[in-house]
């Protein structure tokens, strides 16, 4: 009985914490007014918020059911894929010029996103005319 009670409280606390972090992430998404700073908010939701929800799910399944480890896999796949989508959004921002121009890299010529081949530049010129 006490074990189940403890499990219930632990699940509830995890759910509340997760919901709190997701809420803060959403507030950040709405509050910031620059595309690059906005990008920071979803990465927060993806890690701690979802992690807390999954932890709650695991505790609940172990206390009331057979127990499940699938949540660990969800976590692992999320951690592998979240940075890639963030990276793509950052690249789009740089492409569109929606943010301050990044400083030049110290050793190389330019950033790979800004490294447009000459043929493409000519095509863009033709399209303008």
């Amino acid at each position, binding site marked *: 009985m006490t074990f189940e009670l403890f499990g219930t409280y632990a699940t509830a606390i995890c759910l509340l914490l997760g919901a709190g972090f997701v809420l803060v992430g959403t507030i950040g998404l709405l509050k910031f007014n620059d595309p690059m700073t906005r990008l920071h908010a979803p990465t927060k939701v993806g*890690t*701690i918020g979802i992690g807390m929800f999954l932890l709650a799910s695991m505790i609940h399944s172990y206390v009331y059911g057979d127990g499940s*480890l699938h949540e660990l896999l969800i976590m692992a796949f999320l951690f592998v894929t979240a940075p890639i989508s963030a990276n793509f959004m950052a690249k789009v921002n740089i492409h569109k010029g929606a943010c301050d121009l*990044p400083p030049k890299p110290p050793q190389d010529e330019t950033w790979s996103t800004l490294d447009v081949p000459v043929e493409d530049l000519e095509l863009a010129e033709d399209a303008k005319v």
Partner: protein
Amino acid sequence: MTRILHWLFPHPVLTLLLAVVWVILQNDLSAGMAVFGLILGIIITKLTAVWWPERPNGIRLGKMMTYAAIVLWDIVVANIEVAWIVLTVPNTKLRPAWVVIPLDLRQPEAITILAGTITLTPGTVSADLSDEGHSLLVHALHTEDPDAVRDEIKDRYERRLKEIFA
């Protein structure tokens, strides 16, 4: 003997990883499932071996575990810091900055892990790589001193990754 082992396990870490993922997917920790996972791991690594001609050899798994623990802890701490920034710092006082990190790492796998770590630890997002791969572009949400962010990333993560992929 070592030849047979090498033929059977061209990528032992991947084989192990696939077996573990299989067992967790089945939610059933029995000997049968473990053996089946191992068989799958061997077949898949043999079939896909063509597509990874160069792979890092000699990854130190023990150091990898310490690294994962450090990153997990940093994610928790930094999340709370960023939540505080979101709730208390007004937009006008926010100091976002580009941070350029010169890379000592050369292996693509190591750079990928470093970029992923930087994005996962809140407050920084890795945005781009320079055309020759010598530096990494990172966007910081709120920092007074971009150089300090750079030094911390280099000291805390890159140094450890260099030891892992030695």
